[in-house]
């Protein structure tokens, strides 16, 4: 959807959700709007533009600029149209000579303290002050420019992405209000009084030094050039824009890529995007520079061995070389000796093609996806209990929640745009229970205090979930009628027998989890009786040896309290990557065809066999960890890995590296020479989300369009690369556009049968299931009954992980993400986001640090049963004694050198969140880090040879 650049429509004040309608006349035009609507908005809806400066429809009305004054029949003076709400029969005049004079005179005051440098101003042509001066007809500033002013106020250029130029500020407070109302960080304020008022970050700090999280809501809200993107200053105003979907986390924000030719000059969150409704974070809005980073590899490359230099070749040569080697490997080692890994960062269509290529071209089911290592337990746990492998709600549903449980997730860092929505609801008074080993930001932040923080010891989630259920059952707080009507009663009775047992009482589980029994009881009562209860969880739940058990425990809690099937409740996995949900939906698991249908099912197989014209293997293929094991055993020799950096992201790096070295033909398709590519024999250059068409599916099951803003730098989008390889392997794949792939998916997958690009363009986005019963999609699942029919209460016995702390490894390491970096950091490390997080550090409690003689900033060795790495220490009480924490955004950190092979019993999802370690003060990086560094240098040299 190419559009010439134009600012997004702005109705001035937020929409009213009242159902009562009010009719009034504005300049003689009859307008009917919901009660509670402002006169300004009513006018906008009736097609009458009232000039304004301090009003914008993402913020509550404020009434400070005094430009939007109108006349209302029967009222004295000139009420501000933004703060005056409509009444039945009201007669409004928006223009008269008196109003005109008043507006002009107010504007004259503004401009008497504003530089007259419009022609050289970065927002020339895209400035509300400029537009409004035009609208009110300002022709002179009789005050002159000799008076007191702010024209020489100093610029703050500390933020890498935007500047703050107070000389251009009109004190409308839109930035301050956006920081409070939209983002919820409260980093900005107005300092001083009267004429001396000024916008101030933190306590008169620079933006970078302040609490500012660089979400950019202030920049978006600013009507002048005061807060302006540096890219706009450098490149000028965009000339066209393309609506697309963010390629970072699973929130799936909708953006307008604002372009000049093939260059992105700005990413602006799209107001009509239902996942984000006009908000964004520092990654999605600003961190797109990686897409044109000099490290991008844009030509296919091949080499015989990983000690050889790379050689740039044509796509044809790279593809036929790969096909020949794969065929030779299969001829020598058998049909199942090769496989592929699809990416949750790629589009649905691309993931679908990869699995199709494996099942039809490789002739086996050796296809797995990176969801294996994050949310595979969600798929298993929710499918088992509720019948569908997906979250149950829309994000907007949280606005109706009364009690929110956040478990093993850190939304303000990892899902910031959802976090802002959640924080807004919490500020309105919803209660909050945080279950997390760390004191995450939601536990205590401006205007937010968790009612209960249950600081669970890593690895014991199941005891906490069981104890919550135990309290609810034993205190008789369950939703009796709901359960009787909607759940399998025999299984429920069995489960009640199980859960009511004393071993699940909080007083008993406290010894395992470390969660005080009284807090846990109080939290259980709150969730069961506090109104609409919504659970949001993340990888802190799934990435455990009992990840699937914990997911089922969460579903049990929701069913037990009747908190499924309507607005404001539900069970919501926060997906890590942009298309985790989609990659799972698209059949990229070794046992499931698209739509979560088992490969052993004859009818399903026949359906696909008819369409694809091949015979499909009925045996599930290898999961990622099985592929590694088989590679080390010499049975698995060829791997096609698209858009995933297994060498950095998968656990037990030594093991992964050994496996990669054992593979004879490793094909990596990526935008950078990532850690995995350093072990590869074929490199196929990938395309970023800006370079291709497709769809992503976010954590709400929302399918949104990804739209091409520029041609792929390598000449092929990823789906085209896969198609070429598949055809070289003898498949018969011919798609002219990803929409044709989606048509095939819709034809073969009942939950997608109503999806098409045409409908996506019409509706903006669609939450699956979308079919004949729900042609516009399904915002909330399990409304009348569960997808599986009756809800199933699974028995969730606590089985302690084998990864235990002991005398030798007395501390438990857990891992997570930080706001500015994304996952393995391949993208964000190549942007200015690294100014916030240049390295991963180890968080350790002051008590544990002191025992080991560790000071803040010291090098510390982290030794686990499988490996050792070295990081700088961050001594902080965010973690409790006995627990240490790090992030994994930098390859050199080697976070996964220490994580183990333990994994979820049901899905093999690695147990990233629990590793027993010892910490000691050291003086230098570890031997692995030294090896990593030299290997890295060697591989980069081999790359350089290809390029010159």
């Amino acid at each position, binding site marked *: 959807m190419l559009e010439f650049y134009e600012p997004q429509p702005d109705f001035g004040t937020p929409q009213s959700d009242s159902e009562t309608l009010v009719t009034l006349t504005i300049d003689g035009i009859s307008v009917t709007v919901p009660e509670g609507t402002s006169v300004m908005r009513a006018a906008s809806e009736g097609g009458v533009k009232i000039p304004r400066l301090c009003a914008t429809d993402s913020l509550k009305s404020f009434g*400070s600029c005094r430009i939007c004054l109108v006349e209302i029949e029967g009222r004295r*003076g000139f009420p501000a149209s933004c*703060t005056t709400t409509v009444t039945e029969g009201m007669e409004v005049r928006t223009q008269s000579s008196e109003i005109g*004079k008043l507006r002009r005179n107010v504007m004259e005051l503004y401009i008497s303290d504003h530089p007259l440098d419009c022609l050289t101003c970065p927002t020339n042509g895209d400035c509300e002050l400029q537009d409004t001066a035009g609208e009110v007809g300002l022709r002179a500033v009789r005050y002159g420019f000799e*008076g007191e002013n702010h024209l020489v106020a100093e610029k703050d250029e500390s933020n890498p992405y935007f500047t703050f130029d107070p000389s251009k500020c009109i*004190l409308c*407070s839109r930035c301050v209000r956006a920081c409070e109302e939209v983002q919820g960080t409260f980093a900005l304020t107005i300092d001083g*009084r*009267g*004429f001396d008022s000024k916008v101030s970050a933190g306590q008169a700090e620079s933006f970078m030094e302040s609490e500012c999280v660089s979400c950019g809501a202030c920049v978006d809200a600013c009507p002048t050039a005061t807060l302006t993107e540096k890219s706009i200053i450098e490149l000028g105003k965009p000339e066209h824009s393309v609506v697309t979907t963010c390629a970072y986390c699973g929130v799936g924000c909708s953006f307008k890529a604002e372009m000049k030719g093939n260059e992105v000059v700005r990413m602006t969150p799209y107001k009509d995007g239902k996942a984000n409704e006009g908000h964004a974070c520092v990654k999605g809005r600003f961190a797109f520079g990686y897409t044109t980073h000099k490290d991008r590899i844009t030509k296919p490359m091949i080499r015989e061995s990983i000690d050889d230099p790379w050689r740039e070749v044509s796509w044809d040569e790279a593809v036929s070389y790969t096909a020949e080697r794969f065929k030779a490997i299969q001829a020598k080692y058998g049909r199942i000796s090769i496989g592929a890994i699809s990416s949750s960062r790629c589009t649905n269509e691309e993931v679908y093609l990869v699995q199709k290529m494996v099942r039809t071209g490789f002739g086996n089911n050796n296809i797995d996806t990176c969801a294996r290592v994050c949310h595979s337990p969600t798929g298993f746990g929710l499918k088992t209990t509720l019948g569908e492998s997906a979250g149950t709600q829309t994000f907007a549903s949280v606005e109706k929640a009364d009690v929110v449980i956040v478990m093993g997730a850190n939304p303000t860092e990892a899902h910031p745009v959802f976090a802002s929505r959640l924080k807004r609801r919490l500020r309105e008074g919803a209660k909050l229970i945080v279950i997390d080993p760390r004191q995450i930001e939601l536990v205590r932040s401006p205007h937010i205090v968790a009612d209960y923080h249950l600081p669970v010891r890593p690895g014991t989630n199941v005891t906490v979930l069981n104890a919550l259920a135990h309290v609810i059952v034993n205190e008789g707080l369950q939703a009796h009628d709901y359960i009787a009507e909607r759940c399998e009663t025999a299984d429920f009775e069995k489960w009640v027998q199980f859960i009511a047992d004393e071993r699940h009482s909080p007083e008993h589980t406290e010894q395992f989890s470390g969660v005080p029994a009284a807090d846990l009881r109080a939290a259980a009562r709150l969730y069961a009786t506090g109104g609409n209860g919504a659970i949001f969880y993340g990888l802190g739940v799934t990435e455990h040896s009992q990840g699937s058990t914990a997911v089922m425990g969460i579903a049990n809690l929701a069913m037990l309290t009747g908190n499924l099937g309507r607005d404001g409740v539900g069970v919501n996995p926060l997906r890590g990557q942009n298309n985790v949900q989609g990659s799972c939906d698209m059949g990229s698991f070794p046992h499931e065809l698209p739509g979560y249908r088992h490969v052993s099912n004859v009818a399903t197989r026949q359906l696909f066999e008819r369409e694809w014209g091949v015979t499909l293997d009925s045996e599930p293929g290898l999961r990622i960890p099985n592929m590694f094991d088989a590679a080390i055993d010499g049975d698995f020799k060829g791997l096609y890995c698209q858009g995933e950096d297994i060498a950095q992201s998968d656990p037990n790096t030594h093991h992964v590296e050994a496996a990669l070295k054992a593979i004879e033909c490793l094909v990596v398709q990526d935008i950078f020479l990532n850690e995995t590519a350093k072990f590869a024999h074929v490199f196929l250059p990938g395309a970023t989300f800006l370079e291709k068409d497709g769809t992503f599916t976010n954590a709400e099951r929302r399918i949104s369009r990804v739209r091409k803003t520029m041609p792929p730098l390598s000449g092929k989008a990823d789906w085209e690369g896969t198609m070429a390889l598949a055809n070289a392997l003898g498949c018969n794949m011919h798609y002219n556009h990803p929409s044709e792939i989606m048509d095939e998916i819709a034809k073969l997958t009942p939950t997608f049968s109503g999806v098409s690009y045409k409908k996506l363009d019409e509706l903006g986005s669609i939450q699956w299931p979308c079919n004949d019963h729900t042609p516009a999609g399904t915002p909330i699942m399990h409304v009348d009954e569960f997808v599986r029919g009756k809800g199933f209460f699974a028995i969730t016995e606590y089985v302690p992980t084998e990864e235990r702390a002991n005398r030798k490894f007395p501390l438990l390491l857990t891992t997570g993400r930080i706001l500015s970096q994304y996952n393995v950091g391949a993208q964000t490390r190549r942007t200015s986001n690294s100014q916030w997080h240049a390295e991963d550090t180890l968080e350790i409690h002051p008590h544990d640090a002191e025992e080991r003689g560790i000071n803040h900033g010291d090098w510390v060795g982290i030794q686990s049963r499988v490996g050792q790495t070295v990081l700088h220490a961050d001594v902080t009480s965010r973690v409790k004694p006995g627990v240490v924490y790090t992030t994994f955004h930098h390859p050199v950190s080697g976070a996964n050198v220490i994580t183990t092979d333990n994994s979820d019993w049901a899905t093999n999802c690695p147990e990233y969140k629990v590793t027993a370690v010892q910490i000691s003060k050291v003086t230098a990086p570890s031997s692995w880090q030294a090896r990593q560094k030299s290997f890295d240098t060697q591989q980069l040299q081999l790359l350089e040879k290809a390029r010159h």
Partner: protein
Amino acid sequence: METDPYQLIEGMTIAGLAVGANQGYIYLRSEYPVAHKILNKAIERATEAGFLGKNICNSNSDFFLEVRLGAGAYICGEETSLLESLEGKRGMVRAKPPLPAIEGLFGKPTVVNNVLTLGAAASILEQGSETYKDFGMGRSRGTLAVQLAGNVKRGGVIELAFGVTLREVVEDFGGGTYSGRPIRAIQMGGPLGAFLPASQWDTPLDYEAFAAIKAMIGHGGIVVFDDTVDMAAQARFAMEFCAVESCGKCTPCRIGATRGVEVIDRIVNNQDRDNNLILLTDLCDTMELGSLCAMGGMTPFPVRSALTYFAEDFSGESPREN
């Protein structure tokens, strides 16, 4: 508050019972430490005696009272700024509607009244409404505590029934100027009140009568000036006061007041005088019609009255000499 704090406590309790509120706040300027001490002590005693707190006088009704101190901002006398300040925020004016009675302190319905009103509530309930009504004239009933200040022989506070004329107050009670020179101007109602020339001194203290001459009674403060006063400087002071005390939220007040000072300076310096006089009038219109609250809206009152009745002081000739 310093001499009879219980009248205020009683008045607030009555107000609380009347509207069903169980929490009251006295928002006191920090410049009155004695009143602060006395009020706190009085609240403590009233609470001990069962007149405040839980189940007051065994009535099954609760009413708690708390004194909160301001931080020196004039604007916090404006009710919505006062509420912001009470909430612990900057004293910034809120747009109305919603009125505080609908959505006030911490978003709850709030009655905001001044000490005079609440004090009067206690007297009215004690003495009956007829007694109260017997004082005053027209729609202005009861009494007013008039504060006589400035260049006046006998300054101080006098409680008077509405209806006496300004001249009676200043000349009879005040005894004329302290300097003994003729009175030239009287400002009534605080720093944003109009300057009244001799022709208006026979106006009775009555809200409607004052409004009719574009003046105001306000809090009853009277400042007397003798014939040495420079009314252009007084007009300038009004703008300057607004510039210093403006909360800075709305544009007419935030920028207008500063520009007002500059324009008056240009007028008295004879710089492009006629155009600047037009500009000053335009500015007064803009502030009066466009400001968010009465601070910016009333600053033009002293300015305009000085311009209208004492135009000769703006002539640009050297200031009046004495």
